[in-house]
């Protein structure tokens, strides 16, 4: 499995996706190949997918440290921990100064699994920002 195969699959899906979402893929070159996936109508929250030796990792950036109300940081962290298990397929993390949600799949996952993962991740990202907006400036 590599990002190009995934991009090919998602691009050929067009309107026939199981999730009802239309994906647009844009590879980003670098030391590690990353696929930037945008969901039609949700261009502001792209998903970044990269493939390692044994995993496929899908990440969506939520917000930066500077967007969190200073007196709400702890409360937000606790909420994130509490939500980590109920939230389907995705988990919270932090990369540098950015909070993210991500999903990790086994390298042996099928295209269907990946498609489902992306759909759920996108929905989770939207919901989480909505639900946690009280903590944000």
């Amino acid at each position, binding site marked *: 499995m590599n990002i190009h195969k995934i991009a090919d699959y998602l691009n050929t899906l067009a309107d026939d996706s199981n999730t009802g979402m239309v994906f647009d893929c844009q590879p980003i070159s*670098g030391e590690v190949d990353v696929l930037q996936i945008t969901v039609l*109508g949700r261009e502001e929250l792209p998903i970044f997918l990269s493939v390692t*030796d044994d995993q496929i990792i899908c990440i969506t950036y939520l917000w930066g440290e500077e967007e969190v109300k200073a007196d709400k940081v702890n409360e937000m962290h606790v909420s994130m921990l509490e939500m980590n298990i109920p939230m389907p397929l995705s988990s919270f993390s932090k990369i540098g100064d950015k909070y993210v949600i991500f999903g990790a799949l086994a390298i042996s996952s099928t295209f269907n699994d990946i498609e489902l993962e992306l759909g759920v991740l996108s929905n989770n990202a939207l919901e989480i*920002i909505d639900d946690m*907006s009280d903590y944000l400036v």
Partner: protein
Amino acid sequence: MSIFKKIMTAIRGGATEVGESIIDSNATRIFEQEIRDAENHLTQAKRDLTGVMAQQMSSSRDVDRIKREIVEHEGYAVQALEKGDEALALAVAEKISTLESELSTQQQALDSFQGNADRLKELVKKSERHVAEYKRQLSMVKTTESVQKATSAITDNFSSSNSKLLNAKDSLERIKAKQQKFDDRMKAAEVLESENSDTSLEAKLKEAGIGASDNNANSVLERLKAKQK
């Protein structure tokens, strides 16, 4: 230090600057080499184990054979005694004594092979667990490394395309607005559709002379006439 602790320290240590790899790639290579070495040792150990187990089997067969011979010769000795041939019985007894010492030697060898095989099996199992654990740790290191490199590629891409990751609330508002617009359009289309079907139905009814008819001059005149009466 556990691998979790190492990764945590590396991330906490401010090594999160873009482009800076938190894990020394040289260290990763050394680690990979160590895993390969461990796997080679494991293969060697398995080969040794096969050898020892083969020796164990052959030794066990020898032990069985000697035991059988002893039983057999004991029978001969008894038969010689029954025939009153003391000298022959003694000769057989000597043979049995030789066989018994041979048996004890062979039994010792067998025990030692068995011990070795057990030890090697334990070692192989332990090594397999270690290799699996090393692989898991390496996967963690490589994933951390990969995510960091991916992040740097993403950040570079954003700064070069002059676009910026939006504020989360703004992003949400925009997406919601787009969704609203889409919903509104869907609704408008629905309304339009239903209106169209209403008017076409009306037209059909009128054609069939059913429903409200036009207020034409005749009907007005009829009404006025009716009032006069």
